[in-house]
């Protein structure tokens, strides 16, 4: 009898140890023929749940997201790391720049909202949105669309400007021409440089939905957020404009720069990033 008692206790302890890191694949029906996938790590119920959103065209298995998921889950936080469908049901692969992109920022906002609702339905005491790279822009767009969303804090890691390496005038011109195509109903795919894509192939609507999130709009919308907002940036992030971090600092958001880290915060900087995020989450 005593033996069985000891065995039970050992099993319980083991389950308690592995439970925070147990990964649960989650699928969420977005529409009739579109299902989104996500990884959910259930954490302590008294801690805030974290929704980690990957960068542009990536998945929740992107290393930066994956490491953060593991780190946060290890710290006892429930973590939901969804993969935006980008119009691909059950998407599990990064979508190439040259793929036919029909998805829009609105689609992303809808899916983030669905996942927030899904997480909120799990009775989380609070929900912290963490976005990486353009995912930070998309979470910002979500929050700008859903002002009353049950989000307690927004943490943007390596938040980008969106349309990179183009001046404001040229961007305005591109936006106007694209907007004209959308307005005229043209559906021919167009190719433009966007984010890290040299040739981003997309429908005019898709293209317009993303390029409209210009740096100025990002900064503006950040300023309009009512919840605490932190941007964690790498000092060696080469995906950013030279003055982007400075411009971010001019917003009401808190900007933390990890010296020496690149856009992906990999290597030894992943721990710095995790520590910073944990600090941010604990501080909440």
């Amino acid at each position, binding site marked *: 009898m005593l033996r069985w008692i000891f065995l039970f206790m050992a099993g319980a302890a083991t389950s308690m140890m592995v439970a925070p890191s147990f990964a649960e694949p989650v699928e969420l029906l977005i529409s009739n023929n579109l*299902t989104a996938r996500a990884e959910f790590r259930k954490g302590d119920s008294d801690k805030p749940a974290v929704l980690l959103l990957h960068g542009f065209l990536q998945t929740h298995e992107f290393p930066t997201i994956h490491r953060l998921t593991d780190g946060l889950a290890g710290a006892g936080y429930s973590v939901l790391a969804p993969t935006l469908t980008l*119009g691909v*049901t059950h998407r599990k692969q990064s*979508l*190439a720049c*040259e*793929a*036919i992109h029909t998805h829009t920022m609105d689609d992303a906002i809808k899916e983030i909202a669905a996942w927030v609702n899904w997480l909120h339905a799990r009775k989380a005491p609070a929900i912290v949105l963490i976005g990486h790279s353009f995912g930070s822009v998309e979470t910002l767009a979500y929050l700008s669309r859903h002002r009353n969303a049950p989000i307690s804090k927004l943490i943007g890691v390596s938040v980008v400007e969106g349309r990179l390496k183009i001046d404001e005038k040229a961007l305005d011109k591109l936006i106007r021409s694209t907007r004209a195509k959308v307005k005229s109903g043209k559906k021919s*795919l167009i190719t433009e440089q966007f984010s890290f894509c040299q040739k981003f192939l997309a*429908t005019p609507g898709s293209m317009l939905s993303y390029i409209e999130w210009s740096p100025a709009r990002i900064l503006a919308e950040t300023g309009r957020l009512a919840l605490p907002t932190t941007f964690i940036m790498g000092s060696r992030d080469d995906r950013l404009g030279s003055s982007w971090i400075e411009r971010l600092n001019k917003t009401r958001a808190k900007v933390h720069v990890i010296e020496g880290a690149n856009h992906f915060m990999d290597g030894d900087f992943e721990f710095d990033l995790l520590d910073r995020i944990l600090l941010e989450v604990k501080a909440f």
Partner: protein
Amino acid sequence: MKFAFKPHSIGRLALLFVIAASILVVSLGGYFWLEIQQASRALRENLEASARQEVSHALAAADQRMRSSAMSLAQWDETRQQLVFPEYYPVWRDSRVRDAGMISSDIESVALYDRTGRILSAKSAPNGLPNLLPGKPPLFFYIANAGRHQIDYFSPVYADPAQAILLGYLGIRFDFLSELKLQRSFQFADLGRLKVGLASNSPIDIRNSLPHLQFDTLSNDHLATFLQLFQAAQIRLTLAVLASLLIATWLLKRLLVRPLRFFSREINAMRTVDDNLPDGRLFTTPLYITELENVRRAFIDYRQRLFSLHESLEQNSRDFFDQARHDALTGIYNRRAYDEDWRGLGNDRRLGQAALLLFDCDHFKAINDTYGHQVGDAVIRAIASCLQTALRTGDKLYRLGGDEFATVLLDADPLHAETVAERCLEHIMAHDFRQYGMSEPATISIGVAASQRGDLGLGTLQKQADLAMYAAKRPASPKVVFYSEGMGELNALVANRSINAVFEAIRDSRLIELTYQAVMRLPMVQKEYVEALTRIRLNDELIRPDAIFPIVQARKLDAEFDLSVIRAVERDMTEGRLSPNQGVSINLSAPSIVNAKVVDAMLTLVRKQSARKIVVEITETALITQMETASANIDQLRQAGALVALDDFGSGYSSLRYLATMPVDLVKFDISMVRLLEHGEARQKMILEEIAGMVIDAGYELVAEGIETRAQLDMIISMGFSHAQGFYFGKPGEEVEEKIRQDF
């Protein structure tokens, strides 16, 4: 069963050896060729098996790869994207799927189908894949398209990894051959002319489709090179061996066969040689084989000794030949040489200008008997020497036998022949025969026959010379007689018919027909007895004495013929052709008077017919030849009662010594002497009258022959002749009584 061994020539055996060696070489070459072919076939089969295995592996790999490619494509997010939002499906199908590197270059077409199996965007689907799925995927379909082999593979596309949510289907078309080639580098299979034994648009199990595939096997370059090198080497080796055999054949023929053949030929030539010895051409140069060279040297020595022996034999043969052709006594050519030279000239040959001279010593028998054989031999040698001296250089003189000689003068006209004959006669006459103890000279008679225009054959020439010789031998004939047409009678008599008649008459005396010529007693002119004249009647043909006796003399038939005549006379006496008291005179030849049979027959007749007067007429020649025997026989006949008459006195070789000693009762003056008495010169008449007187005075009765006229009869009566006979008293066989009675 007995095996008959038959030897073969070295050349044939050598040829057989070379042929056998060639066949062996070719056979071995063929054997190795076949072995290589078999090995090549086995290797080819291995290659084919390897090729099949290779293709089988390629099929499995292609199947796996196509499935893998289709699976990768089905699991590609953008594939699912198109099945959910197919608005830009053509872009994805035509460019995106290739640009993304999701399909390999050998995949020719890609198509997506919805869950019902209907192709997305059928209107813009020129890629050849069907608009509707041909079956329930996963499915491979074989397509034969313009000589190409294509495979359509259809695979389901699921939304979730558990394959619970079917989104649609994926179709890819790839080139079967390219896909197979893409799998691996074929070392054995040649798929260039791949044939698939399946109908187009039929399902195919690629992994197990090998039985449906037909393909070639890649030629193994190393094997082909090896075979080519081996075959070339084998051909070169065979040619080299054959060439070596040819050279060996030449060497064999040159070094062994040819010498052996020459040896064989030389030895065979020696075995069958007559006048030709081996030519010895081989033996001028040394041979290369020691043993043959030894044989060659031994053969040379042997041949030289053989040559020496041959030359010695030839010399001996020539000596024997010469001895056989020469007369031992005289040293001139003999009868054999005459016959051989005669045959050499050819009996049927027509001569141009040529003359045959026959010489005969007169009364040689008498000389021999009188002086002995040594003197006779000396006379023969002297005559031969004289004749040889008289002849031209190169003219051959033959001793035909006894006292007969002959020579043939080629290219000699009659005048030249006559000159030679006269010269011969002169040489004989000039010779002093007294040195041999002879008291009288030896004389010769010469018969000459000449061919002037090539109109005579040798046989005819010889016959004519014989006739001329007989003519020369006749009493009162010149010593050199040329054959003339006038000798036709002789010619006829010596014909076979006459000879045959003589022999028949000897065998059967009934063929002898005797006519009787009366011998008249003078001066009463009364028939005292008759002389039997001999003729032969054969087949109603009458052969006269002048044709009979030359044959008898030539054939030495005197005794036999005289015996037959004696039997004929006896027959006539018996049969009454002669009256019982009719005396008869019978001529006996010189040989007969010394022949015992003839003498005995004559003695029998005389004794048997003692009532008749029997006269035996002999010629003076009989007395000359065998004087003693003849005298003894005559004495016996006279003692038996016969009278002996010396016939033809004065016609030939007459000697007063014989006349003085001859034991005869009657002497018959030859007709020539009777004619001289009538028509001769005074001196001739006086001599003859003296001779007649001497004969009468010696006590002989004298008979005159050839009395043809009354004047002749009167003359001989006046001279004291006791008997006469001739045509004046009637021809032989006629009765003379009436005629005599009329004249007197």
